[in-house]
Protein backbone atom coordinates (compact mmCIF):
# COMPACT_ATOMS: atom_id res chain seq x y z
CA UNK A 1 0.00 0.00 0.00
CA UNK A 2 1.11 3.54 -0.67
CA UNK A 3 2.42 5.42 2.34
CA UNK A 4 4.28 8.59 3.29
CA UNK A 5 6.78 8.68 6.15
CA UNK A 6 7.94 11.80 7.92
CA UNK A 7 11.03 11.09 9.96
CA UNK A 8 10.51 13.44 12.87
CA UNK A 9 7.31 14.06 14.75
CA UNK A 10 8.67 16.98 16.77
CA UNK A 11 11.54 19.33 16.01
CA UNK A 12 12.73 22.16 18.24
CA UNK A 13 15.11 24.79 16.87
CA UNK A 14 16.45 28.18 17.78
CA UNK A 15 15.96 31.10 15.44
CA UNK A 16 18.50 31.24 12.59
CA UNK A 17 19.13 27.49 12.75
CA UNK A 18 18.86 25.49 9.56
CA UNK A 19 15.93 23.16 9.01
CA UNK A 20 15.57 19.89 7.15
CA UNK A 21 12.47 17.76 7.45
CA UNK A 22 12.57 14.33 5.92
CA UNK A 23 9.84 12.77 3.79
CA UNK A 24 9.86 9.40 2.07
CA UNK A 25 7.10 7.72 0.15
CA UNK A 26 6.42 4.22 -1.08
CA UNK A 27 4.96 4.20 -4.57
CA UNK A 28 6.65 3.32 -7.82
CA UNK A 29 4.33 5.12 -10.21
CA UNK A 30 3.73 8.71 -11.23
CA UNK A 31 3.63 11.14 -8.32
CA UNK A 32 3.15 14.79 -7.61
CA UNK A 33 4.68 15.96 -4.34
CA UNK A 34 3.58 18.61 -1.88
CA UNK A 35 4.46 20.18 1.42
CA UNK A 36 1.60 21.74 3.35
CA UNK A 37 1.93 23.88 6.48
CA UNK A 38 -0.55 24.49 9.26
CA UNK A 39 0.16 27.52 11.44
CA UNK A 40 -1.45 27.56 14.89
CA UNK A 41 -5.18 28.17 14.57
CA UNK A 42 -5.12 28.25 10.78
CA UNK A 43 -6.02 25.88 7.97
CA UNK A 44 -3.62 23.79 5.92
CA UNK A 45 -1.82 25.87 3.32
CA UNK A 46 0.30 24.86 0.37
CA UNK A 47 4.00 25.55 0.97
CA UNK A 48 5.39 24.17 -2.28
CA UNK A 49 4.80 21.54 -4.91
CA UNK A 50 6.68 19.40 -7.41
CA UNK A 51 5.02 18.21 -10.60
CA UNK A 52 7.91 17.83 -13.03
CA UNK A 53 11.13 19.49 -14.20
CA UNK A 54 13.79 20.84 -11.86
CA UNK A 55 13.79 18.58 -8.81
CA UNK A 56 14.74 21.50 -6.56
CA UNK A 57 11.59 23.52 -5.99
CA UNK A 58 11.21 26.76 -4.14
CA UNK A 59 8.15 27.70 -2.16
CA UNK A 60 6.90 30.55 -0.05
CA UNK A 61 8.75 32.08 2.90
CA UNK A 62 12.19 30.83 1.85
CA UNK A 63 11.38 27.13 1.92
CA UNK A 64 12.67 24.71 -0.68
CA UNK A 65 12.44 20.98 -1.26
CA UNK A 66 14.40 18.50 -3.31
CA UNK A 67 12.87 15.53 -5.08
CA UNK A 68 15.27 12.59 -5.26
CA UNK A 69 13.49 9.97 -7.32
CA UNK A 70 16.00 7.19 -6.61
CA UNK A 71 15.47 7.63 -2.88
CA UNK A 72 11.71 8.23 -3.06
CA UNK A 73 12.34 11.33 -0.98
CA UNK A 74 11.12 14.93 -0.94
CA UNK A 75 12.88 16.66 1.95
CA UNK A 76 11.97 20.18 3.03
CA UNK A 77 14.69 22.71 3.85
CA UNK A 78 15.13 26.25 5.05
CA UNK A 79 18.56 27.80 5.70
CA UNK A 80 17.51 30.00 8.61
CA UNK A 81 14.24 29.55 10.48
CA UNK A 82 12.25 32.27 12.18
CA UNK A 83 9.94 32.17 15.17
CA UNK A 84 7.02 32.61 12.75
CA UNK A 85 7.87 29.25 11.15
CA UNK A 86 6.47 27.51 14.21
CA UNK A 87 3.82 25.24 12.72
CA UNK A 88 3.03 21.69 11.71
CA UNK A 89 4.38 20.54 8.37
CA UNK A 90 2.83 17.79 6.27
CA UNK A 91 4.38 16.02 3.32
CA UNK A 92 1.83 14.71 0.81
CA UNK A 93 2.09 12.58 -2.29
CA UNK A 94 -0.48 12.50 -5.06
CA UNK A 95 -0.45 9.00 -6.51
CA UNK A 96 -1.98 8.45 -9.91
CA UNK A 97 -2.58 5.67 -12.37
CA UNK A 98 -5.39 3.76 -14.04
CA UNK A 99 -8.03 6.29 -13.03
CA UNK A 100 -6.71 6.28 -9.48
CA UNK A 101 -5.80 9.70 -8.10
CA UNK A 102 -5.34 10.23 -4.38
CA UNK A 103 -3.41 12.54 -2.03
CA UNK A 104 -1.70 10.66 0.79
CA UNK A 105 -0.37 12.57 3.78
CA UNK A 106 2.40 11.86 6.20
CA UNK A 107 1.74 12.08 9.92
CA UNK A 108 3.20 15.57 10.15
CA UNK A 109 6.16 17.20 11.88
CA UNK A 110 5.52 19.74 14.58
CA UNK A 111 8.19 22.46 14.48
CA UNK A 112 8.78 24.81 17.40
CA UNK A 113 11.20 27.70 16.87
CA UNK A 114 12.45 29.48 19.97
CA UNK A 115 13.55 33.13 19.82
Amino acid at each position, binding site marked *: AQSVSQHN*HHVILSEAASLELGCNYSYGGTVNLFWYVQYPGQ*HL*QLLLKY*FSGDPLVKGIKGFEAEFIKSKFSFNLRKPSVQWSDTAEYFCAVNVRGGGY*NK*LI*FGAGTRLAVHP
Partner: protein
Amino acid sequence: EAGVAQSPRYKIIEKRQSVAFWCNPISGHATLYWYQQILGQGPKLLIQFQNNGVVDDSQLPKDRFSAERLKGVDSTLKIQPAKLEDSAVYLCASSLSRDQPQHFGDGTRLSIL
Protein backbone atom coordinates in the same frame (compact mmCIF):
# COMPACT_ATOMS: atom_id res chain seq x y z
CA GLU B 1 -10.57 34.72 -3.46
CA ALA B 2 -12.80 33.32 -0.76
CA GLY B 3 -11.51 30.12 0.75
CA VAL B 4 -13.21 26.83 1.50
CA ALA B 5 -15.97 27.36 4.06
CA GLN B 6 -16.91 24.73 6.60
CA SER B 7 -19.43 24.61 9.41
CA PRO B 8 -19.72 24.08 12.25
CA ARG B 9 -16.21 24.65 13.63
CA TYR B 10 -16.83 22.47 16.66
CA LYS B 11 -19.35 19.77 17.48
CA ILE B 12 -19.79 17.66 20.60
CA ILE B 13 -22.20 14.74 20.55
CA GLU B 14 -22.76 11.50 22.37
CA LYS B 15 -22.01 8.16 20.81
CA ARG B 16 -24.80 6.71 18.71
CA GLN B 17 -26.06 10.20 17.84
CA SER B 18 -25.90 11.56 14.29
CA VAL B 19 -24.02 14.60 13.02
CA ALA B 20 -23.64 16.46 9.74
CA PHE B 21 -20.94 18.74 8.40
CA TRP B 22 -21.25 21.25 5.60
CA CYS B 23 -18.69 22.45 3.07
CA ASN B 24 -18.76 25.20 0.45
CA PRO B 25 -15.76 24.92 -1.89
CA ILE B 26 -13.96 27.67 -3.72
CA SER B 27 -16.05 28.89 -6.63
CA GLY B 28 -15.25 27.02 -9.83
CA HIS B 29 -13.48 24.13 -8.17
CA ALA B 30 -14.75 20.91 -9.70
CA THR B 31 -13.14 18.53 -7.25
CA LEU B 32 -14.15 18.31 -3.59
CA TYR B 33 -12.63 16.14 -0.89
CA TRP B 34 -13.51 15.13 2.65
CA TYR B 35 -10.69 14.08 4.97
CA GLN B 36 -10.58 12.72 8.50
CA GLN B 37 -7.66 13.82 10.66
CA ILE B 38 -7.25 11.93 13.91
CA LEU B 39 -5.03 13.53 16.54
CA GLY B 40 -1.36 12.90 15.80
CA GLN B 41 -1.98 11.71 12.24
CA GLY B 42 -2.11 13.28 8.82
CA PRO B 43 -5.39 13.78 6.99
CA LYS B 44 -6.88 10.63 5.50
CA LEU B 45 -9.11 10.85 2.44
CA LEU B 46 -12.68 9.71 3.03
CA ILE B 47 -14.34 10.62 -0.25
CA GLN B 48 -13.61 12.54 -3.42
CA PHE B 49 -16.18 14.15 -5.73
CA GLN B 50 -15.69 15.30 -9.29
CA ASN B 51 -18.56 17.76 -9.81
CA ASN B 52 -21.50 15.86 -8.28
CA GLY B 53 -20.17 12.35 -8.89
CA VAL B 54 -18.15 10.20 -6.50
CA VAL B 55 -14.74 9.20 -7.89
CA ASP B 56 -13.25 7.59 -4.78
CA ASP B 57 -14.99 6.49 -1.60
CA SER B 58 -12.85 3.44 -0.92
CA GLN B 59 -11.92 4.61 2.60
CA LEU B 60 -15.37 5.81 3.63
CA PRO B 61 -16.98 3.59 6.31
CA LYS B 62 -20.20 3.29 4.41
CA ASP B 63 -22.10 1.57 7.19
CA ARG B 64 -22.15 4.85 9.11
CA PHE B 65 -20.73 7.62 6.91
CA SER B 66 -22.44 9.18 3.92
CA ALA B 67 -21.71 12.19 1.77
CA GLU B 68 -23.35 13.99 -1.07
CA ARG B 69 -22.60 16.88 -3.36
CA LEU B 70 -25.89 17.83 -4.93
CA LYS B 71 -25.64 20.28 -7.85
CA GLY B 72 -21.85 19.91 -7.83
CA VAL B 73 -21.17 22.74 -5.39
CA ASP B 74 -21.83 22.41 -1.64
CA SER B 75 -21.33 19.11 0.10
CA THR B 76 -22.46 17.49 3.33
CA LEU B 77 -20.84 14.66 5.25
CA LYS B 78 -22.96 12.71 7.73
CA ILE B 79 -22.15 10.22 10.44
CA GLN B 80 -24.96 8.05 11.77
CA PRO B 81 -24.54 6.60 14.34
CA ALA B 82 -21.32 8.07 15.69
CA LYS B 83 -18.73 5.97 17.51
CA LEU B 84 -16.04 7.07 19.95
CA GLU B 85 -13.34 6.46 17.33
CA ASP B 86 -14.95 9.05 15.04
CA SER B 87 -13.53 11.83 17.22
CA ALA B 88 -11.37 13.79 14.79
CA VAL B 89 -11.12 16.91 12.71
CA TYR B 90 -13.07 16.64 9.45
CA LEU B 91 -11.49 18.65 6.67
CA CYS B 92 -13.01 19.70 3.41
CA ALA B 93 -10.79 20.63 0.47
CA SER B 94 -11.34 21.63 -3.11
CA SER B 95 -9.26 21.94 -6.26
CA LEU B 96 -9.74 23.07 -9.85
CA SER B 97 -9.14 19.52 -11.01
CA ARG B 98 -7.86 16.27 -9.59
CA ASP B 99 -4.22 17.03 -10.42
CA GLN B 100 -4.14 20.53 -8.97
CA PRO B 101 -3.19 21.54 -5.42
CA GLN B 102 -5.96 21.29 -2.89
CA HIS B 103 -7.22 24.20 -0.81
CA PHE B 104 -8.38 23.32 2.69
CA GLY B 105 -11.05 24.70 4.97
CA ASP B 106 -10.61 25.26 8.69
CA GLY B 107 -12.20 21.91 9.52
CA THR B 108 -14.81 20.74 11.99
CA ARG B 109 -13.51 19.36 15.27
CA LEU B 110 -15.82 16.54 16.36
CA SER B 111 -15.77 15.16 19.89
CA ILE B 112 -17.74 12.06 20.79
CA LEU B 113 -18.66 11.56 24.45
